[in-house]
């Protein structure tokens, strides 16, 4: 029930005239018809040794103050020292210096508040409304990083809530994000397997499952490309998804090819989206030599 987009600029300082944030805004604007309810972005910026960027949904007013206080308690209990903090929209963003066990910190934070993302490079921004609405509140266009993902959602659950928006962070694993179009039908089976091994889930959303599945493989030292390959066998259902890590971006598509995906690659960049109309938004008036990934295929791009 949605549209997805991803972009990676392969070279740094290549004099391009758009930011990663702006490129994703444009691509999502092009396919907003696929999902008018909420919009989200996973953006990768510069990293600093020992720094972690954390984002939370905290709401507003008293509710926000309480959530922030709980977050700070967990941070200090885990000796994470705050370097920078701000509240934007309904988000609380904090940068900390931290060198302990990330998964433990993440699970504790999750019990204290609604975590959106944790990473040395990754920040997820998502909320109800269109790409332009979300940009207006969170200034997505100012993100200049090298790559990122985007998602527009048509909500079929009871409410259009910001926390139900995509992308999803691989709960407990830094810097891994996913956007997914489709439906995983062996969700509970896969989730139970992962839970038995001690992983926690933040939502009941099948996209989060894909993120945790891939993150688990990566943490075992398996290459992203190989993890994508096994995902096509291990996941049942319909899916076209994009995944990103600190320095990679990749896709996987199910064998039924029920969910569309089109890509466009040049020496400088790779862009993938649900529909060509999103890619054309980056190159107005041009006839692009795009390709449609074949059913049952996967691929990654490295910076």
């Amino acid at each position: 029930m949605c549209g997805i987009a991803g972009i990676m600029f392969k070279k740094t300082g290549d004099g391009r005239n758009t930011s990663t944030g702006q490129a994703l805004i444009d691509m999502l604007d092009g396919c907003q018809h696929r999902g008018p309810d909420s919009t989200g972005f996973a953006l990768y910026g510069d990293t600093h040794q020992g720094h972690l960027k954390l984002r939370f949904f905290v709401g507003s007013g008293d509710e926000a103050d309480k959530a922030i206080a709980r977050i700070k308690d967990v941070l200090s209990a885990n000796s994470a020292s705050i370097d920078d903090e701000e509240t934007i929209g309904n988000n609380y963003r904090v940068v900390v210096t931290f060198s302990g066990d990330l998964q433990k910190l993440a699970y504790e934070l999750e019990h204290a508040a609604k975590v959106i993302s944790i990473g040395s490079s990754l920040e997820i921004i998502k909320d109800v409304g269109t790409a332009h609405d979300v940009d207006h509140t969170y200034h997505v266009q100012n993100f200049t990083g090298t790559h990122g993902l985007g998602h527009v959602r048509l909500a079929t659950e009871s409410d259009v809530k910001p926390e139900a928006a995509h992308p999803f962070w691989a709960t407990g694993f830094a810097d891994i994000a996913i956007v997914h179009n489709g439906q995983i039908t062996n969700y509970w089976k896969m989730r139970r397997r992962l839970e038995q091994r001690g992983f926690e889930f933040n939502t009941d959303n099948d996209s989060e499952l894909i993120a945790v599945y891939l993150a688990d493989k990566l943490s075992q030292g398996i290459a992203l490309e190989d993890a994508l390959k096994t995902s096509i066998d291990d996941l049942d259902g319909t899916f076209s998804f994009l995944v990103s890590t600190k320095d990679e971006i990749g896709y996987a598509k199910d064998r039924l090819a029920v969910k569309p995906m089109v890509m466009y690659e040049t020496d400088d960049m790779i862009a993938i989206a649900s529909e060509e109309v999103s890619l054309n938004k980056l190159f107005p008036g041009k006839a692009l030599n795009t390709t449609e990934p074949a059913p049952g295929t996967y691929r990654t791009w490295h910076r």
Partner: protein
Amino acid sequence: MAQIDLSRISVREGNELIRKYGEAGENVEVLNPDARHHIGVGLTAPITVKVRGSAGYFCAGLTDGARFEIDNNVGWGLGDNIYKGTVVVGGNAGAIAGVAIRGAEIIVKGNMGSRSGQVMKAGTLLCCGNANFMAGYMMYGGRIIILGDSGERVGEDMSAGDIYVAGKVQSLGSDAQLIDLPGEELDDILAFLDKHKIPFNGTFQKVANAGTKLRYGTAEPQMRSLPFFSFSGKSDYWNSKVQEDIHIKSQIGRYRIRGYGGARPLPHMTDLAFRKPIRPDLADAEIAKKVNLYTEIGGIHGAQPLKLSMPVMVAPMSYGALSASTKRAIGLASTLSGIAENTGEGGMSDAQRNAAKQLIFQCLGGRLGWNIHDMKRADGLEIYISQGAKPGLGGQLMAKKVTPQLAKIRGIPSGIDLRSPSRHPDILGADDLVIKVEEFREATGYKLPVSVKLGAGRVRDDIKIATKDGFDFVELDGMQGSTGAGAAEVLEYVGIPTLAAIIEAIEALEEIHARDKIQLVLMGGLRDGIDAVKAMCLGADAVAFGTATIVAGGCIACMQCHIGQCVTGIATQDPEHEKRYKPDIESRNIHRFFESVRWQMAAITNALGYDDVRKLSRDDLVALTPEAAAITGLPYEPEHRDETDAIAIKAS
């Protein structure tokens, strides 16, 4: 040549201009298409449209007679349902290129995506590159020429038509086979390539239907006509119904098919009563004039609504399941009573169009009989997703009913056991559905209401999706709903009851604060005006009658609609049987039934103390059984039972 620049105007404005240029006979060049959807849909003039770049979904869809040239790529559903004309694509085409075409020549210079030519009926689809999997899936006719490789499972479940592959045949689909290529067919193909200046030398392998799945092995024997009470299995444990069922299965060795609605007792409108004592016997004959029943359906988003003299419609029933005379009688009756009729599956005949003043045109997955011209002369367009009798399954029309005349309007080979696809080629999720609804609106200039028919399954999700996808109204059908032919197991055991469906639908809309964004037409086992008023109390905006309509018009409820030998001439395509049906007489009978519904609705509404059906609310109802109370949340007040029985008697 006129120019249209899509960087300056919307596709909607662009399409209006294209149609205008079409009327004036002027060719059009579309600049900056940038892969936008729906370019050119609904064009029915013989002009040339050049698209300077890539086009999105449904480019050239629902057109007749035009020539489209697209310089670069196209998205899903190229040339959807084209009648005649030519489409040339310079680059690649996405999935389902040439879906449901009924003629036309489509040339894709690059590769084409999966399921190309799905449910196509006639015409030629040429792919100069490679095809992806399941080219020719469920095709009924026409030809697909692939100069590259075939893709996996080529010809999957094709009923007829030809597929020619010059490259590798990667694998054959179910019920497809390789056969020798007749010399004259090769000449035909080479002439076609020549005409379109496609250089080629080589030859082809031919893929055709293998004929193993077109007919069931053994036909189902005709049953004895069991009276409904014993058919519904209410008598002893090994009752005659159970025995007959076992006998027939012992002959055919598979699931059984039958017509009519479910026979299992389920919680229903009869388990509800009005909170106030109703005495319709006191109502005067003029009562219908004192209560406002007039209802508009479908105008919520600005389309021209259906104007109903009372909140009642005829349920969609196909020409195919029903005879042409029956469709005519129902159409006439709907006009006499000032309500709306619905084509159901299988197309719109002139007779139907002329008989019914307000006619909804239904579009199903097989696109049987679907076309732009009838869309334009309809009063509403409806996308069938499923129906209450068999949610998730497609229609079944046994060979006996697939006569040459019927096959022609549907665009299929005659004499096959037709199993309509259960899914739409181009609706695989809510996101695609948005694009499909938009295509219909574009093609008909945003004038017609667009509705969706939903069998009650996951009502909560489905209703929300229907609302978000911008439908004007939903025809919601509970599991008591009838069918012309369905697998017996599914009829009785799949879905959720009409009562539960309307409750869930209303709750779903309240959850997303959208009660005013879509209208609900409820059906499925509704028998009269009393049921109708209860449905309105529970929140329906209107109701529809299927079975009651045909029973009013002479159906004897033998439950054998699927056999094709209907003794009343209703559910048959056999001219000998059909002769018995007298549409002019039956239309009067059906009309009188509708008028009794009007009288009941007015009398009960009046007795409840209102002058307008829209004032009815759930506070007017109580539940007579614990189950009905649990489903509806209404107070359980069994003591109202006697009064209900009294109304039923008096009203009958």
